[in-house]
Each structure stands twice: as C-alpha cells, then as structure tokens.
C-alpha cells in the first residue's frame, strides 16, 4: 500500500510543486492549508509523514503545529509521525521567525525552493527512522 504524505502549506504552488515528484515516486499525497485544517487532517488521513511549512496564517503557525504534534504534550500516535519542515531561509541568513531550529521537534528541514531529488531523499530517510 502506498505511503501517505500530508503536506501542510498555504501556498498552492508549493503544494503543486511537492505533489509532482511525490506522486511519481508512488506516494499518496494529501494536503491542508492552515494550522487548524492540518491538525484535523493528521487525525483523518493518518499520514506516514508530514511536510510542514513554517509560515502560514501567522509567521509561526508551523512552529506551533510542530509543537502540538511533537512537543512534550503531544499524543503518542502523533509523535510517531516524522515531520519535515519547509524553510525558506537562506543558510547564511540568521533571521528566523521562531525559535532556533535546534530546539524544534522536527525530523529534518527542506530548504525552499524545493529540489525534488532532495525532497525524495530526505523523505525516504525520515520514513526509515
């Protein structure tokens, strides 16, 4: 059975760009566009991995959702799902919107613009964990 990937991002073009390589690699892709619908989709879709954008309705929506899913108060079944976080911050740029990424409860980061090969590679690695 195909593994289910949930993309939570409010930019339809980014969702489209992620969907293409994921579907052609055989994943079943679902999407949500806000923190609330994303959280609801985690329970209905029961994804094998989540790809989460940092900034949606607020500048830190992604951070907050990551905390809800993997933080100290998270449900055990949520904690099992690997999260890949999409960031659009350049490597040499220290301006980040939320807490330092070292303290974020996510499994890996994917830099925007997304390189499909990098995306598939990191996803496979996260799913193996």
């Amino acid at each position, binding site marked *: 059975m195909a593994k289910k990937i949930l993309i939570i991002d409010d930019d339809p073009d980014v969702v489209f760009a992620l969907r293409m390589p994921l579907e052609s690699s055989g994943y079943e892709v679902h999407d949500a566009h806000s923190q609330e619908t994303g959280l609801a989709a985690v329970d209905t879709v029961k994804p094998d991995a989540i790809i989460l954008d940092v900034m949606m309705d607020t500048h830190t929506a992604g951070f907050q959702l990551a905390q809800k899913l993997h933080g100290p108060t998270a449900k055990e079944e949520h904690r099992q799902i690997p999260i890949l976080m999409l960031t659009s911050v350049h*490597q040499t740029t220290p*301006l980040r919107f939320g807490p330092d990424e070292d303290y974020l409860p996510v499994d890996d980061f994917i830099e925007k613009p997304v390189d499909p090969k990098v995306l598939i590679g990191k996803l496979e690695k996260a799913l193996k964990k």
Partner: protein
Amino acid sequence: MSTFPSADPARTAEPRALQPSFEELSQNSRLLIRLRWVAGFGIISGTLFAKIALKTDLQILPLLLTGLIVLGYNSLLARASYTTASQNERTLRRAQQIAWGQIILDWLAMTILVHFTGGITSPALIYFVIHAALSGTILLPWQTRSLTLLAILIVSGLALLERAGLIPHVGIDELGLDDNLHQNTTYMLAVVFFFGTTLLTLSELVTYIAQRLRQREERIRQLYEARATFVRVATHELRAPLAAGLSLMKNIEQGYAGEFTDQQGAIIQRVIIRLDGLRTLIDDLLTLAVSREASTAQAPLEPVSIRAMLDKMIEREAPQAEHKKLVLDCHLSDEPGITLAGDVGLQIIFGNLLNNAVKYTPEGGRVEIEYTVVRMSRAGSAVIKIADSGIGIPIKDLPNIFNEFFRAQNAKNAQVSGTGIGLATVKTLVERYKGNINLESEEGKGTTVTVSLPLAPKQSQN
C-alpha cells in the same frame, strides 16, 4: 517653576515618567562613587589646608570625621554596585535603592559639613547643587522633587535651630562675616529662598532633560523594532513567490512534468540561474540589513562559544558540500572559545565564509576548517582558518575583495550567484568584535581566510 512647556502641543499629554534603565543607573552610580572619592579626600585635605595654611579657626575634628565617614560609606557603595553587575528585576531594584540611599547619605554628610563651616553663612552650601543635578539623572521626577525639598528643609531647619540657639553656631572668623549674620532674619530668608529656588530649578531642568533623552531612546528602540519587523515581512513576501516559482521550475528541469526539447531545457536552465541570482540578492540584502544592525555600537556584546557556532554552521553547509562531493576536513580544538560578540554576527561571519568556500570550490574539491585557541599570559585568541581548493581570486582583484558589491571577474565568469556583500559584511563584523581577518588567494588554486577573535576575559565568560 515646576513645569516646562512642551515644544510639541500634541505631546502635552506626556507619557508616564520613564524609569532610568539599569545601565543608566549603574553608570551614573559609578560616576557618583568616583566623584565621592574626590569629595571625601577633598574634605580632609581642604580642612587641613584651611587649618594649617590659612590658619582658620575651623573645628577640624568633626570635619575630618565627616570626610572619613564619606570615604567609608563610599567604599561600601562601591562594593555593592560592583556585585550588582548583572541585570535582572532584583538587581534593578537594588540599584534604585542604592541610588536613593547614596543621595540621602550625601545630603546628611553635607549638612554636617555646612554646619561646621558656618551654617547658613557657609560657603559650602553651594555643594548641594551638584546633587540636585545628579539626582535628576538617576531618580524618577517625584523622587528628585522630594529629595530636593528635603534638602531645602534640612538647610532651613539647620538655620532655624542655629538662630534659636538650640544648636551652636560654628562661625569662621577668617571669612570676615558679621558674627551675628546667622541671626539676621532677612539674610536667612534670602539665602533659603535663593538656595531653594536654585536647587528646584536645577533639579527640574535636569529631570526634564533626562526624561526627554529617555523618551528619545525609547522611540529609537521602537523604530529599530519596527524596521526589523518590516525587513522580515518584506523579505518573506519577496521570497515566497520566488521559492514557489523555482520549486515548480525544478520539477520541469528534473523531468517530473514530462518530456521537453533540448531548447526548452536550455531555457529552463537559464531561468533557474537568473531566479537563483535574484534569490541570492534578496538574501544578501537581508543579511546586510541585519549585520548593519549587529555591527552598530548599540548592539550588545555577549559571550558566545566559537566552537559551538562553528559546529552549527558547518552542519548547515554540510549538505551542500556533500552534494558537490567536496571533502570537508575539520580540525577543531575542543575548547569552547568564548568571545564577546553577537550571536547573529558570528553566524553571519562563519556562515558566509563557509558558504563561499563551498560555493567557489568545484566538484570533488576540498575545504579545510581549522580552529585553534592561542593562549597568552592573560588574554588569548581563537584562530579560525578556512581554506578551499576553489577558483581563487585574481591578484588584481585582491585589494578590492572586502569592498561592498565588489565581485572578482572569475567569480562572475563562473556563473556562481553572488552579490559581493558577504565579505564586506564579514569584515565589518570581525572588526566590531575586535578581531582580524586575513585573506590569501591564488587564482585557480584556492583561497584561505583566517579570522582571529579575542577570547573574553574570564569573569565575563560566566
């Protein structure tokens, strides 16, 4: 005399009085303590001079004792203000108490000094002016006002008590004043009136200026915050569509959207390169904006671990190096290497240098990172060397390499995206942190950048 007209009628409803910051309090307290050393020794030497050289009939014992008491409580204050070097809610309160306390102690010492040098006729009366001014810089307006009124009350009380004969009047004959001057009601009232109004006017004036300065500082801080927010939001708005567009283009480039002709492929390549260049420009402009802030004198310096920051930045650059099959050769000392810098600034320095090394080294090349700590008797420094086997810099371009927006010709030819902002920013920041940067390069062979940063003195490392 207690209010000053506001220059701007729209701002007559002044915001609440601003508390002096911890920094302002401790700085002004330290100034007061330094001045008091001079005052204490001044009382002692002045008394001895007046007695021995001028042969006045001063009562030297109480005056010398006053000088010693001043020196005594000053050394206690100096110790107290030394132990409150770090800022928090508790130490701020303590600094405020120390500010209050020392002005009251000084008022009392000066009253004794005034009493033993002629009471209302004492030439030392004018010294109260110094404190009326200083209290305006470290206390809230109502506190300054109360203390100034207290000083006027003390002096008038002293004059009244001496006049009524309840405490003895200590006159100095050599001043040539009428022995009964202190009993002259008109003279007494005149002195108290001019003394009081001078003190009140001065303390109000200083309070007003200090408040204006604090308000201005507050407004500058708010402006800085607003600008930082603007830069962040604007950058996000600029980046988001570019990132989405580039992500889509990469799907076509990598064949996820079906077959395309060679010519279409070439066009896609060019579009990606141009959009990548635009992305670098946005990122670099943001870095420049941030580093300008980080390199200003206002940005506080704090102890930061060089080793920890290097680890973090190497980790960030590693995937890119791996992608280009570069050998990352790290020789890093285990010492944390605490330097006084800014977290953001240090990230920019190492991030840029590592990013350059990886960016300008062709596939299969090598990047060496060396970090050593050099200790001398008291101080020490950390040396960070980043050497690559990249395209290098032509000798004619070396003198300009740290100039803003300058890019070497071979870097432009190599079609590596860049803006020429990185090294200029790095140099400004390294100098702000009192370090040195040195760059050696040979075209076609590689570049070595060496940065040395001073280690923080031991006590500020905790």
